[in-house]
């Protein structure tokens, strides 16, 4: 499947507008914590749009973007975040545990290192059944602090499991650092364990598309696991645990209107994968400004509809709390 700037930008915008809507709804509905994926759109979209039926996906506390990137219904996702009966998990999972098995999502774990551990089980099952599918583990750099990540990398390499380890590295030394590894090179340990590794600029969808394409080809070819580090620039509103909406609603026209990008968050705006991608695609003629505005309008419209669906969805019956634990 060839890389489509239009489809990719559309998906990225949907991811962004989704997260902005979560911020709005969190205020309106007095929700607790969420971990937003603003700034991770290029990686999520370009990676997850390449997956096939039968591939399995394992994600983390920062899962919203992955769901939307893979094409999960945004109304059901918002409803889940609101704890509604119409949500992806009937309101039982919430922001941290969204899933959609029809699209390959498996249990979403908010335990740091959880997704990487479970993914080797998916890889084990896919290999056992020779389906040709790939298990994709999405996780932050912080997961590599946990022993379970090491054990998972080791067993995946040892058994040559079809797992793509996709690390979203948003750590910069200092305040925003989410991992504390003794090495600055995140690929050093997987490489030591004989896993083929690569790093990619996670803010560049085209580069991600290529890198993930190569990684998936490796894994599907029966060559064992692959570790891809995507280097991301951290959104200033993203703190270790909770977000703050310091950068305001994204204005896509800042992709070409430099005056709009000269506030205190100018550096962020230069790095914002959406503004950056829109800017580059316009510069190379793949898209026009009008295309971008139109795509953004579509995204906004879809998310508005999603909100309407979510807010109209009733809460589940309280007794549902006891149901569905055992078959």
């Amino acid at each position, binding site marked *: 499947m060839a890389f489509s700037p239009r489809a990719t930008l559309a998906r990225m915008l949907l991811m962004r507008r989704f997260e902005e809507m979560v911020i709005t709804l969190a205020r309106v509905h007095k929700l607790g914590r969420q971990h937003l994926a603003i700034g991770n759109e290029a990686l999520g979209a370009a990676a997850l749009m390449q997956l096939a039926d039968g591939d399995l996906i394992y994600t983390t506390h920062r899962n919203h973007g992955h769901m939307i990137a893979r094409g999960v219904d945004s109304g059901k996702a918002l409803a889940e975040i609101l704890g509604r009966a119409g*949500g*992806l*998990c009937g309101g039982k999972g919430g922001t941290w545990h969204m899933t959609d098995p029809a699209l390959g999502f498996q*249990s979403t774990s908010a335990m740091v290192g959880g997704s990487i551990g*479970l993914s080797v089980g998916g890889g084990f099952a896919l290999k056992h059944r020779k389906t040709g599918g790939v298990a994709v583990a999405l996780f932050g750099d912080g997961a590599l602090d946990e022993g379970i990540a090491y054990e998972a990398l*080791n*067993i995946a390499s040892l058994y040559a499991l079809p797992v793509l380890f996709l690390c979203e590295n948003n750590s910069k030394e200092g305040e925003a650092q989410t991992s504390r590894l003794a090495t600055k090179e995140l690929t050093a340990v997987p490489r030591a364990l004989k896993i083929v590794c690569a790093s990619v600029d996670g803010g560049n969808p085209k580069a991600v598309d290529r890198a993930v394409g190569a990684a998936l080809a490796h894994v599907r070819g029966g060559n064992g696991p692959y570790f891809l580090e995507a280097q991301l620039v951290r959104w200033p509103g993203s703190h270790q645990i909770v977000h703050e909406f310091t950068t305001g609603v994204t204005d896509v026209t800042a992709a070409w209107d430099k005056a709009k990008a000269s506030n205190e968050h100018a550096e962020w705006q230069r790095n914002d994968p959406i503004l950056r991608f829109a800017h580059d695609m316009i510069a190379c003629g793949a898209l026009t400004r009008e295309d971008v505005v139109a795509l953004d309008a579509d995204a906004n419209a879809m998310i508005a509809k999603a909100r309407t669906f979510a807010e109209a969805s009733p809460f589940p019956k309280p007794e549902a709390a006891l149901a*569905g*634990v055992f*078959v």
Partner: protein
Amino acid sequence: MPIKSFAVAMIDALAHSLRSDPNVVLIGAHSFLSDRGLRPEDERALWDAFPDRLIDPPTSEGVCTSLVTGAAMAGMRPFLNYGTATFAFEAFNQIMSEAANVSLMSGGQLRAPMTLHMFAGIRGGGAGQHSSSPQAMYANSAGLELVLPASPADAQGLLRSAIKSDNPTVVITHTRLLSMTGEVPDGDFSTPFGQARIAREGRDVTIVATSLMVREALKAAEALAQDGVEAEVIDPRTIIPLDTAAICTSVRKTGRLVTVDEGNALCSIGSEIAALVAEQAFDALKAPIVRVARPPVPIAFSPPLEAYVTPNADKVVAAVRKTMQA
């Protein structure tokens, strides 16, 4: 009915499962199969029959648990043997936060049909790190079934049910049960969860015992019968689900309760059974409940020290005498 050892009965349950469902795999095969009393040719035949499905993984209990959880969600039916129960503590988060939550957290969309097996108990020289009886910790979880077989027939039937169950199931085997022999029905059968076994009928006192302690309770009951005290011995077999009706029915008949479990006394299976009866069959109780359990101390190595804290038939007899006198 053929006579089998507990260990061989367990292996037979697994062999039936491997044969009838290609999704069954055994991770941690060596310590489950080897030196367990199988005839060498039978053991070799098993390894030969399932070369890809009997696996000895790295000493990485955490990811082995994640692996079976992930594989179970993806449609397999894996069986993980940890060896000694304390080793599973290395995987406690993977058991409690991942496996146990799969079903509820996904709104029932996903299942984790997996079996987690461990050898537990005061075993003779296990000392501080190889003697735990952690059943109460698993009973205090949410989202796991908990099975404590106490006889060869139940070992086979309950294990078979555990593997067939669509829920994550913890099975705890007392190391000292492995050599116990007994009658086991022929062929492939399973024993339903949530149905207690009345191991001995009696009218004077109810003894609820689990795992190896069922044997001790039965020994105690024989000794008590010499004095004319007829104890009813109930083996719940599964703690989650628990057959509360069978326990309460027995206490309603006898009016007295002694619990026997090898775990640490505090917040134990015995505490739960006692609390349950004090809640649901209080009016039938004629005397204080008495619990037999290990005192809450790490197990010391030295044989007389170990023996001192190990629950056994003598302690059960003493407990029954105490409740009969009251």
